[in-house]
């Protein structure tokens, strides 16, 4: 009995050790300006900004139309969009790999093992979320609002813009959800990016690598770094939300 407990304690002490070690390492990495870590942070921020930018530009108008207008097959389209929200990242990674490989249809652009390649995959990941949540936000908008705006003498363009403005918080919620998925995915980055040091290594693929190398403490540290970035993004957004 005693030996069983001591084994239990020893075993869990090791696990606690690398979590604690991870905390210290996270601070050391950030404060010492570790070049590899900052390269991975930079890749993560760059690629997720590109993909979230593209998916917002395309997703908001599409989502707005889906929620605002009534047309044939709207419900089925909505179901398709909702289903696509569940696309597994490794599957997207595989599809984009098949497109971008030199023998694939888009092989000539040389996008495999590059950040734009990853951004394409992440845009596919984020788009359904943005479209779906924008449509929901537009649909749940108070119907009286439309009448009020029109009774104030608004033309079609003004009606359109003020409706969009009124559902900004719902759209923002969609954007935050999509950003979270994009920043934390590993399947697309690993398959399309190839986890190439100094180039396409993002924080999540670096965590996968450190885990494979058995450096659990380092993996925990990088995970905390990723959380810190997400925290900064959300602080900025909540600041903007209070102002507008």
């Amino acid at each position, binding site marked *: 009995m005693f030996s069983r407990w001591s084994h239990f304690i020893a075993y869990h002490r090791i696990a606690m050790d690398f979590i604690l070690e991870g905390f210290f390492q996270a601070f050391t990495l950030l404060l010492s300006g570790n070049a590899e870590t900052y390269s991975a942070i930079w890749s993560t921020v760059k690629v997720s900004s590109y993909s979230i930018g593209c998916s917002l530009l395309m997703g908001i108008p599409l989502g707005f139309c889906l929620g605002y207008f009534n047309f044939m097959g709207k419900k089925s389209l909505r179901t398709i969009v909702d289903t696509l929200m569940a696309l597994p990242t490794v599957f997207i990674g595989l599809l984009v790999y098949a497109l971008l490989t030199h023998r694939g249809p888009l092989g000539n652009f040389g996008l495999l093992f590059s950040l734009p390649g990853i951004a394409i995959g992440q845009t596919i990941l984020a788009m359904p979320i943005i479209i779906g949540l924008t449509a929901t936000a537009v649909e749940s908008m108070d119907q009286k609002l439309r009448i009020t705006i029109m009774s104030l003498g608004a033309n079609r363009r003004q009606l359109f813009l003020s409706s969009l403005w009124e559902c900004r918080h719902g759209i923002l919620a969609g954007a935050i959800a999509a950003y979270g998925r994009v920043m934390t995915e590993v399947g697309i980055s690993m398959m399309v990016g190839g986890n190439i040091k100094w180039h396409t290594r993002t924080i999540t693929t670096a965590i996968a*690598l450190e885990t494979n190398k058995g450096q659990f403490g380092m993996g925990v540290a990088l995970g905390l770094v990723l959380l810190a970035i997400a925290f900064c993004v959300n602080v900025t957004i909540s600041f903007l939300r209070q102002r507008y």
Partner: protein
Amino acid sequence: MRRLIVVFIGMATLACLVPGFAVAQDKSLTMATTTSTDNTGLLDELIPHFLKKTGIELKWTATGTGKALKMGENCDVDILMVHAPPAEKKFVGSGFGTDRREIMYNDFVIIGPGDDPAGIKGKAIAEALQTIKSKQGVFVSRGDNSGTNKKELSLWKAAGLPVPERESWYVQTGQGMLATINIANERNGYTMTDRGTYIKYEDNLKGNPPLKILVEKDAVLLNQYSVIAIDKNHCPKAKYDTAKQFIEWITDAEAQQLIKDFKLLGKPLFTPNAKM
């Protein structure tokens, strides 16, 4: 409202100005390699020397040998560093690769719990595998078509046994070598690994790992690494000349010495054996 649009446009412009997504440079080379050369830190050690000497930036992606060969066949990389000689010869024979050169070797070992529940310590490899099977000792396999996995499967066949599949004692991880060793560690089981990765594992656990080397030094356990350039006729866009430069460099005396000097816990991980 208008202000928000301005902010939006500002952010979009900023995103466009963010300096270049790495544009393919002439002086770079893409290599697909196996997890063992990457996870042990050998490439982190070698590649900066290559950059200094030639100005060529080598970018590598680490994966199992099976996928690495597939990437070569699909023209996604310019060069391969792999360790599955029969598959490599087939690859070159099919016209996908050329200039295959052996660069270094280490050997495979069977590791397992220090108390060795099945009792395989010091046995020959075939006998050890037969014992594991009859005693139903837990055996953890890569199960990922990597060079190590191919070797392991060939050893079961050589021992006159059917390749285990869906046996309760046979665990296929589908992961890299160190991850697989860690799973064997958790399951208190046996596994086969290259010696380089084992030393790395020993080093991670500060020189006192629960899994010990039990079977080693069998002639069939040799693990040969080679480099292969992708054939220009098969992939016109592959950077054959640059790949050739890398092959010349890694087989010359200086780089071979670097491989020899790469040590963890004072033990060499790979033995250079390029024919000059």
